[in-house]
Structures are given as C-alpha cells and as structure tokens.
C-alpha cells in the first residue's frame, strides 16, 4: 500500500495505523504542539495520543482534521497531512512562540489580554482564534451519510482485551444476548502483540454465536442514564473506496442490562526536562509498534522507568532487534536532567548523586506506571478511590448494572503497579503534551493561589482539548499535590465527561440534518399557499403564510393591500394552526368554569365566548374563542403556540386535582382545517356554500356557532371576528380543507377579495386593540392589565388564578394596555422600545408591545404596556428609539370602530 504524508510518498502494510507506518519509514516528527509549536512525535500507540494529530484528505468536503495518527488506519492512496505548522513541519515559524516561552506562562491569556476592554473583541479574540486551535475545520458541507441504531442486550462488554474477551465468552455461554465492542480495528487488545491460536479460537466462537454482536472500530464514548451507552462505529474511514450506500459512521444507542467495562489502562509518561522531543514515547507504545506492527521506533533505545514495566519493555524491544543503550531505573536514584536533538531525540542526560552522564540513543521509552481507564465507570456515577500502590484512581463505589474487569478495575500484574513517579520539574518538563503545560506552569498556578484541581485545570488548561488529559492527569495531580503539601486524594480528581474520545457531529446528528433536522407542520392549504407565492413565517413548528406579495410588491405594500381587502370587501385567511381542544362530558361546563376566568354555565349551546385562561399565579396564559356545541360539549380554541401547553395544563388539573369531574379532553388541532372569512361581504361569500343553513344576522349573530354541512362536507361554522369586520371561521375536516378553501376562493373572487396572511391579521387585530398572548402579555400580566377584567365571571367562587389576583402587588398601579400615536403618521415605533415620561427621565414606564404601519386607519399604530396607562390617556410620553427619543401620544388601545358596529353587521 502507498500513502502520502505532507506530500511525500511512503509504503505501508495492511493493518498499519498511520503512526506505525510513519515510524517504519523512520518518520518521528508528526506534529507541532499547540502553544509553543514545538516539534512533536508520537507519544502513545492508541486513542490516548496527545501529539500526533493529522488531517486526512479524501477530497472535497471529505477532509477531517485532528485525527490521531495512532488510530487512523492506512489505506492505499491515503493522503495525510500534519497540522499546526507554517510553512512546513520541519520549519515552522510559529516555533518563535517557544523562544517566547518565558513570557507565555500559565494564565497568560487572562493576564495579558485584559485591557483595554474594547480591544478584546476587535483585536485579541480574532488574533487568538487565528493562532490557536489545532486543525483546519472543513469549509464544505459534509457529504457523507451517518446512521443511528438502537440496540438492547443483556451484557455489553466494552473492550476486547483478555478481560473483556473472557467476560464476553462467559456471558455468551449462558445463551444471553451479548454485544462486544472495541475501539480498535481488530479484537484482542493487548493480545494483539502476541497473536495466538487460542485468541483465534476464542474469537471464532464469538463470531459464530448468533446471540453475540461483534462491533470493531466502535468506541463506547459515553454512559448515560440507566445503562444507555453511546457507541460510535467508524464504518468506512479505513476503506480506500467505500461503497456509496454505506454510512461513514454509525451511532449505536445500546440499552444494556449489564455493562462490563474492560477498558484497560493507559501508561503514564515521565516528567523530566525535554521529555517531549520526537522519539520519546511511552514504553508500551514502543513495544506495540515493534511487535504488533513490526515498526521499530529506532535501533538504539534508552528505557527510563519508575516501575518493573521497564524491564519487560526492554526485554521485548531487545527481542525485536533493538539495542538497549541503557535501562534507567528512577528507583535507583537516577534523575533525567535533559535531552538533545532538534527534530528527534539524539541523546539523554542522566544524573545520580551529581554524576552526570550523556547517553546517545535514537529513541527513549518511558515507563511511568499505569492509569486504569475509569472514564466510563465515573460517567456512570461511580466514585473512584485512590490506590497508592498503582498511583492512580480505581473504581470505588458500586455502580448498579456495571462491572469493571481487568486493568481498568486495578487488576494488573505486580510489575505494573507503580506509585506516582518522581518528577524533575526543571526546565521544560512537560506534563500535558497537547496543551503544552509544564510542571512549572502547575506550580505557578498553586503559587498564584489556585487550590482546587478543577481551578488549576481551567487556569493552566491541563487535561483539556481532544485527549482530555488521558496521559497527563495523574502526573498533574501529583505535582499539584506536592506543591500544596497535600495528598492526591485531598486534591481530588477532575470530572470525567463524555465523550471518551472525540465524536463527529455527523454521528451525533445522524439523519437529523437538512430537511430532516426539525419536523415541519403544514396546513391542508400549504400547497395552495406555496403556489400563490406566499411568504411563510415559522410559528412553533408550523409554517404560516405571512403575506401574499403580488408582482413588484414588498411586504409593506402587500400587507397594506391585504388589510384593505378585508375592510372593503372580503379576505380569507388560513387559521388551521389554531389549537383546538374538545372538552366533553356531563361536567364539561363545571370544568370550564374552573379553568377559565369566564362564566360558562349560562352560555347557551350554539353560542361562543372569548375565553381567558390564567396560570395559578394570576397571569394571562392563553386565550381563544370557545363555542358551546351542546350542553356537554365545548369546542375550545387556543393560540397556535399554546395548544400543547394548554391541553397539558388542563389535563393536569383534570387528572390530579379534580378526578371526580366527568370530563374528557381531546386535541382536535389537526382534525379541523380552519378558514377565516372576514369582511363586509363574508356572508355573501358563504351563503351559497352552506347547504341551506341560515347564516343571516338574526339566525347567526356575532359569537355564535352552528354545526352543518358545506358542499356536503361536515362543518362547524363560527361567527367570530379577529379583524373587527363581519366574520366567520369555517371548520371542516382537514382532508377537505384544501377543496373547501378552493370553493371559498372562487366565491371571494366574485367580490374582488383575496387571501391575507398573518401579518395583515396582526395589523387588523391591533387596529381593534385585540391582544396577542405572548406579544402584549409576557407572563406578568393580569386580565385587568390588558383590559379584560370584564371577562371575569364575577359570581364564580373560584377559578385557576383567582386567588392570586388579590395578592399584594397584583392590584394598584400596574402596567396597562394603551394605544400610542406618533406625530408623523408614517413613523413606526420599534416593538420592545422602552417608554419614559420625559427625555430627561430615564425611568422606564413601560414598553411598546406591537407597532405597525400599513394600517387602514391612515396612520401608524402601536400598542404598549404602560404604568397606570389608562390614567395617562391624552398624555405625551417618550419612546426611546435606537436613534433617540420620539414623543408619542397615549390613546385608548382601539383605533378602529370602537363601538363594534361592524362586527354585528
């Protein structure tokens, strides 16, 4: 296989990771560090790698940054690039930062970019954003497909090393459903360095078992409530030419009765000056590269160790033909005092009792002890405990439904158990390779007063970024504890958060992108509205026609024309999104009495009432016209946005406070299409369509409802008006909505009327001073505040919110609904603008809630909530507009037909 790295061509073997292939090609320099741009090689051999981050470019949008070279599988023709360097990896001008290191200590950003305040947004942030960050984010939209699957199992085993394989085999033998996942391409974990017949046999048995699901290249990245585990499966990234039908990645959401975590342990580096040069790596990583991949990291090694692992590593490296120049055991009093070699280590300096020695080498293996991977255990709610023998945290408290086995449970051979290794913090001794945090930085943070490890982490950034401190956390804890004269358990442990390793947005989003990102609700008339060029607005998930511009019309012109149609002849409006709830039962009227402020007992069947609903706190929650269809049946309408909330609110009281009431609630929002026909010719339009129903002013006065048919279709016809004109609302079953709309449209044409959208509807209602809940009200408004005190059923002993209306602060001077007019009839106020008494007085009296031009009353109008507003009618106040204050005159909130004569036409 061939691949390129930074444009140069190299060979690889099947099964190689990019890091293994580069090492076999004698390439150690793989990246530049984040802050100081120091040359870096590979530190680890797996998912914990902090340094060797690369970009894989498959062309076009398929360019992925920040992939770990130790995880990326090479395929034939792969194009890989290093990151965070200009112009080249060998010569990076960013490395000047390294010379400035004395001036870039921990917390540098916080100290340096403080002043002046204005410079932050203009200067510092853009500069830091350019300089910081690791890879280049792709600029094109992702063209790959991602899928998601749900799965259930009896046992989910995470990790397929010896402990995980044993657990899976044992569970499978009982015939239960098992899922075994591993982040690597092959199953076996540490056994992969010594492939054996036994491993092959064990794996074959698991693959052959139909009750066992084997998922390789699959990372368990998070444990969520009640044993729900997120798995990210990489399906095609390792393939040179994936089948187009395959998703790139697959998210598994696995609900497991029992989780067995067999995540293993991660080796710790050693902290000494110059420990970050390319060629200095973890001992186990060196051994894995040499034995599993046949990619010796060099020919002449120095092994530095703080535990017995070092002897094992030295033996295994020697068996791979590597000369061991020296095995330096820190327990024997040695210290590492420095290293040399610009782009790759060439020698290491050691010291014992003042005797210094420089040893030439071409790589260094560090064995600093092992840290159990307790990330998933901790995410599941386990409280780890510190094991001084291991020098790390191990699972402590029990977690229901979860077991840790093997090295991640602290179960490791005695040779691997090492306390926290001694540190030589002189010079540039790195603790966190990815964030360029040195031992000195951590000590500085403690000198500056940071005590909690969480604060030290945020201040120095140790343990952050894509590797989340997998190799650095314990060493950092040890240094901070030492500096504070405390023990590691006293310092505590930073929180393990999901994901364990980075997960792509694509995997998490799955198919929820583009048109599938968010559900859209459309009315039965939507296609018609689209065909007529309607401009839509989003109201909740609904698409509502806002206005219907004709050729050459802007919004203002179109809305003014639509308003005129309604006032002069007739307009039709799609009101299907209104919430509808059928309230039915012998106690329906009693229920309505308790839920609404209005009185319902005496409302006769066939009549309607404008209902107002409060929360128990006394503030307006929703409103809508309610028709009484029969003694035991109400057709309730709610605001478009409030439909679900109102039904849930009603259902709560019905089930939990008044279970004795015989009443049932059913959502009918989507069952009825609603067509508002409004204007002086509304009755003329509908007359021939209602199959003989008498809809005369006498038979069907304002606020009445009849059930009948329209063109043979079941119909509920309401005589109601939200425009101030003679008006009807035609309810027909949703399936017939479009056909009935077309029939009404034909009639409307006869009278030179037309369709209008939500914007004209808003203007028309504001001219009449009708409120919109959520626009005039904001959850702190009583019925009286918006002039609806009249709607309260005075004889009722109780209703939801009644008691609160007499609480202190609910009466007396409050903000009240008023109208506003400007001197210039063309000036449209800004909705939300604050109002004061004078230009000099800056105390807000209230704010503008609605403001419109394009009205039918000859001037702009506005509604506002103003302190003691009704007493201020006639006064002049100031509206604080973006370009200065504007005088306004306070009026009653009704600008059109205050007597309501047109409603009763």
């Amino acid at each position: 296989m061939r691949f390129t790295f930074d444009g140069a061509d190299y060979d690889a073997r099947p099964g190689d990771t990019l890091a293994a292939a580069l090492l076999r090609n004698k390439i150690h320099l793989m990246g530049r560090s984040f802050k100081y741009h120091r040359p870096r090689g590979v530190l680890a051999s797996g998912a914990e790698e902090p340094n060797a981050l690369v970009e894989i470019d498959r062309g076009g949008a398929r360019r992925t940054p920040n992939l770990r070279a130790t995880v990326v599988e090479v395929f034939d023709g792969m194009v890989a690039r290093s990151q965070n360097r200009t112009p080249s990896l060998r010569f990076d001008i960013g490395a000047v930062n390294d010379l400035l290191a004395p001036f870039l200590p921990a917390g540098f950003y916080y100290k340096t970019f403080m002043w002046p305040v204005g410079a932050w947004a203009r200067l510092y942030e853009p500069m830091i954003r350019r300089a910081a960050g690791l890879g280049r984010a792709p600029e094109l939209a992702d063209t790959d497909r991602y899928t998601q699957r749900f799965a259930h199992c009896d046992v989910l085993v995470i990790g397929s090393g010896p402990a995980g394989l044993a657990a899976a085999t044992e569970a499978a033998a009982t015939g239960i459903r098992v899922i075994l996942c591993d982040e690597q391409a092959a199953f076996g974990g540490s056994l992969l360095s010594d492939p054996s017949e036994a491993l092959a046999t064990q794996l074959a048995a698991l693959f052959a078992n139909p009750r066992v699901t084997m998922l390789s290249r699959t990372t368990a990245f998070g444990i969520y409530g009640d044993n729900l585990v997120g798995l990210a499966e990489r399906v095609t990234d390792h393939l040179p030419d994936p089948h187009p039908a395959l998703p790139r990645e697959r998210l598994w959401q696995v609900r497991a009765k029992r989780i067995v975590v067999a995540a293993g342990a991660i080796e710790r580096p050693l902290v000494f000056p110059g420990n970050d040069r390319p060629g200095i790596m973890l001992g186990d990583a060196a051994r894995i590269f040499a034995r599993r991949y046949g990619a010796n990291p060099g020919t002449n090694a120095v092994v530095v160790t703080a535990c017995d692992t070092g002897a094992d590593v030295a033996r295994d490296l020697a068996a791979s033909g590597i000369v061991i120049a020296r095995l330096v055991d820190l327990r024997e009093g040695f210290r590492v005092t420095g290293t040399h070699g610009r782009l790759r280590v060439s020698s290491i300096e050691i010291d014992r009792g003042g005797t210094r020695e420089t040893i030439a080498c071409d790589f260094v293996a560090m064995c600093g002890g092992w840290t159990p991977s307790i990330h998933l255990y901790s995410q599941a709610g386990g409280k780890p405990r510190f094991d001084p023998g291991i020098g790390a945290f191990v699972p402590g408290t029990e977690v229901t439904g979860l077991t840790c086995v093997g090295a991640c449970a602290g179960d490791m051979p005695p040779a691997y158990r090492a306390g926290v290794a001694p540190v030589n913090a002189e010079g540039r001794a790195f603790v966190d390779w990815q964030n360029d945090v040195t031992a000195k930085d951590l000590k500085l943070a403690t000198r500056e007063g940071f005590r909690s490890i969480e604060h030290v982490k945020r201040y120095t950034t140790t343990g952050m970024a894509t590797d989340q401190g997998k190799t650095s956390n314990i060493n950092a804890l040890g240094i901070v504890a030492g500096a504070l004269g405390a023990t590691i358990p006293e310092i505590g442990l930073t929180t393990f958060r999901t994901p364990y390793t980075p997960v792509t947005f694509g995997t998490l989003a799955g198919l929820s992108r583009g048109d599938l990102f968010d559900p859209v609700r459309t009315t039965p008339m939507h296609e018609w509205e689209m065909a007529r060029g309607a401009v839509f607005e989003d109201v909740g998930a609904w698409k509502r026609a806002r206005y219907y511009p004709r050729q050459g019309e802007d919004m203002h012109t179109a809305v003014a024309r639509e308003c005129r149609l309604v006032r002069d002849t007739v307009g039709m409006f799609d009101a299907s999104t209104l919430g509808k709830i059928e309230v039915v039962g012998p106690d329906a009227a009693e229920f309505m009495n308790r839920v609404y402020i209005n009185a319902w007992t005496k409302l006769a069947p066939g009549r309607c009432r404008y209902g107002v609903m409060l929360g128990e706190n006394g503030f307006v929650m929703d409103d809508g016209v309610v028709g009484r269809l029969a003694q035991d049946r109400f057709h309730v309408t709610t605001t478009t946005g409030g439909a679900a909330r109102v039904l849930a609110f009603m259902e709560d009281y019905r089930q939990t406070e008044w279970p004795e009431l015989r009443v049932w609630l059913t959502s009918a929002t989507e069952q009825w299409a609603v067509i508002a026909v409004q204007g002086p010719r509304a009755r003329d339009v509908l007359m021939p369509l209602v199959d003989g129903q008498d809809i005369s002013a006498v038979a069907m006065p304002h606020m009445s409802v009849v059930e009948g048919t329209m063109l043979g279709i079941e119909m509920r016809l309401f005589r109601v008006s939200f425009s101030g004109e003679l008006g009807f609302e035609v309810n027909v079953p949703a399936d017939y909505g479009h056909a009935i709309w077309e029939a009404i449209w034909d009639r409307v044409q006869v009278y030179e009327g037309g369709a209008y959208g939500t914007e004209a509807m808003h203007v028309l209602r504001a001219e009449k001073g009708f409120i919109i809940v959520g626009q005039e009200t904001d959850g702190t408004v009583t019925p009286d505040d918006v002039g609806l005190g009249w709607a309260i059923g005075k004889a009722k002993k109780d209703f939801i919110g009644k008691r609160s209306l007499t609480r202190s602060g609910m009466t007396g001077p409050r903000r009240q609904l008023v109208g506003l007019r400007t001197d210039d009839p063309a000036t449209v106020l800004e909705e939300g603008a604050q109002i004061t008494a004078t230009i000099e007085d800056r105390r807000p009296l209230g704010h503008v809630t609605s403001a419109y031009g394009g009205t039918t009353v000859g001037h702009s109008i506005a509604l506002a909530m103003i302190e003691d507003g009704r007493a201020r009618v006639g006064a002049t106040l100031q509206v604080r507009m973006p370009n200065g204050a504007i005088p306004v005159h306070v009026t009653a909130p009704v600008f059109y037909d205050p007597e309501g004569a047109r409603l009763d036409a």
Partner: protein
Amino acid sequence: MKLIPCPICGERAEIEFTYGGQAGLTRPADPAATTEAEWGAFLYARENPKGMHRERWRHIHGCGQFFNLTRDTVTDRFIP
C-alpha cells in the same frame, strides 16, 4: 437517557415523559380562605432535597397518565 417506570406501560425512555414537579401539593379547597403566606407558599415554595424527592411525572407520549415516583437526587435513580 433514563428509563422511567410508568405504572401503566412499564419502563419507557425519558423522552416520552414530562416532569411535573414536587408531588403531594394539594390545591387548597377554598383558595379565598388562605392567607397571603399560605397561598404564596402553595404557589412558589418547593422542596429541593439532596436525597429522596417525591415527584410527579406524566407519560405524555404514551398513556398520558400522571403518577408519582420517588427519586434519589444524589444518584438520579428512582426508588421503587
């Protein structure tokens, strides 16, 4: 995502439910007879325990029923 035991439907995923706040609050039979403080407490005073919390849930995307559960707020687990 948690599993929530609906007494009617059994264990279902948390997204099928809505939270209903502290359980056991009863609306006063005669709100007009309550004092300012009593009504204020009914409206706004809620427990915020570290430990056992009796609370309401509704299986809104299932059977629609309200029911009460005890949850340990330390472990975020329901106690049968």
